[in-house]
């Protein structure tokens, strides 16, 4: 088994941490995992992305040209990565930050109003967990419980009070995406 996930957004939207949380969860499940950020000047210019690879065996390349799972937090990421998603793959788009629909029909694209959902829970910084929750509907390698356990095990003590909210954000993203998926299947 090997699965690659690419997460991209503006700096500050939590894309890198979203990837780290998934990497922790995969590690805690006994998997091999790599997390690699974009650390170049583009990161300083405002966009940030990371790639997470989860596998049973020693991982080769930490990067893939056509990831089967992508989260796009904003329009530039949506524009850049939509065409790169592996056919049959899944693309989670933060609908709050884009002004167009999907242009591909050979992948599953799920639009999630991430900013609004996060603000409803009470903190816009929960955007990344909403988006991760949405991806989990199409990511059999990890469950909400895995992510929650990873947050609990690896968040610094001072942030632990935010756990219930993070849990809620994951669930909200998951439920929203699940409903969208059901609509698409019908």
């Amino acid at each position, binding site marked *: 088994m090997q699965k690659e996930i690419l997460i991209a957004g503006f700096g500050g939207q939590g894309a890198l941490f979203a990837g*780290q949380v998934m*990497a*922790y969860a995969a*590690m805690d499940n006994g998997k*091999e*995992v*790599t*997390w*690699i*950020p974009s*650390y*170049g*000047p583009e990161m300083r210019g405002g966009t940030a992305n990371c790639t997470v690879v989860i596998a049973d065996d*020693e*991982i*080769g*390349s*930490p*990067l*893939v*040209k*056509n990831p089967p799972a992508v989260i796009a937090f904003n329009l530039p990421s949506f524009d850049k990565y939509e065409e790169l998603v592996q056919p049959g793959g899944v693309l989670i788009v933060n609908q709050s930050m884009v002004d167009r629909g999907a242009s591909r029909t050979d992948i599953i694209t799920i639009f999630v109003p991430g900013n609004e959902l996060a603000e409803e829970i009470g903190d816009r910084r929960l955007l990344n967990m909403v988006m991760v929750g949405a991806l989990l509907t199409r990511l059999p390698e990890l469950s909400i419980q895995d992510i929650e356990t990873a947050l609990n095990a*690896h968040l610094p003590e001072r942030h632990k009070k935010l756990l219930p909210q993070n849990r809620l954000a994951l669930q909200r993203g998951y439920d929203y995406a699940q409903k969208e998926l059901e609509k698409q299947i019908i």
Partner: protein
Amino acid sequence: MARELLKGNVAMAEAAVRAGLEAYFGYPITPQTEVLEHLSARLPELGRTFVQAESEVAAINMVYGAACTGTRVMSSSSSPGVSLMMEGISYISGTEIPAVLVNVMRGGPGLGNIAPSQGDYNQAVHGGGHGDYNMIVLAPSTVQESIDLMVLAFDLAEKYRMITMLLTDGSIGQMMEPAELPEMRPVVRKDWDWATNGAIGRERRILSSIYINPPLEEETNLRLMKTWQKVQANEVRYKEYYLDDAEFIVVGFGTSGRVALSAVRAARAQGIKVGLFRPISLNPFPYAMIDELANKASAFLVVEMNSGQMLEDIRLAVRGRVPVEFYARLGGIVPFPDEVLSEIQRVATTKLNTDQHPRDAWLARFTAQSER
């Protein structure tokens, strides 16, 4: 100890601490700054020495001075910074004292960029500083290997009284992977019979790289060569993947080695009998193993993130018996596995032309492809 999710640079730094690193001298440069950042907190906390020098030139000379006392000492930098250290590296080598260096390579030449590269292979493996010297050069490809080789580097440096360099790149430095750190070893400053650590009650010792008298310099050169023969005999390291029945052999180190691993697996899934040979010690280079593989393989494919620097060492070992092909990305670009897979398919299915140097052939192919 349990596995932790660690960033390559941080993992190397913490591994050095646990291996008994007593003093660090360095200067920040992306993409290795986390090494320095981690040590700037850890070493003072443990009552050890951390100095951010005013430049890489100063840092390497501080390393030189501290190494003379028998202290476990290191520095780290990235390509342009390592170039600045070349004079000091030659002096340390000429003085025959141990030191550990890390080069987290980035795109070059010149100031280049901060993306991952392997452009400093020749500088590390075939000299860079002046005069006849060798460094042990180790190339990790994972975070765990970065840790294990860092610990080994200190032992090897002291065993052979020479510099051991970890040659890695921005990709491995910035990547996080689960890895296990070693137990904390106590700081032990051994009473080496060469160390200038205070001459009270004993004969004075002099450590220097100056041999004004040519016969004495020649004697030193010969001694360095004999030491290097021992290193060559004992310290060759590499990892093999799917080589048992391999007709085609991909060779790559560090990041290009692990990218090649993905491509080799994909090619295997298509029924191509291909394996991967990943050198870990770049100096001493695993010539003998390549030599042996050349007797049973029908072709080699060398994959690097430079213009074919290790390629020449492979050609030296293969000695024209079978075709050696080449694929590269440069400038700080890491190849994707599918690029390497296409090359494996080409090597496995087409008649290879051996008239042209593989570097020239690759350059022609690559340029034609990008112009299309």
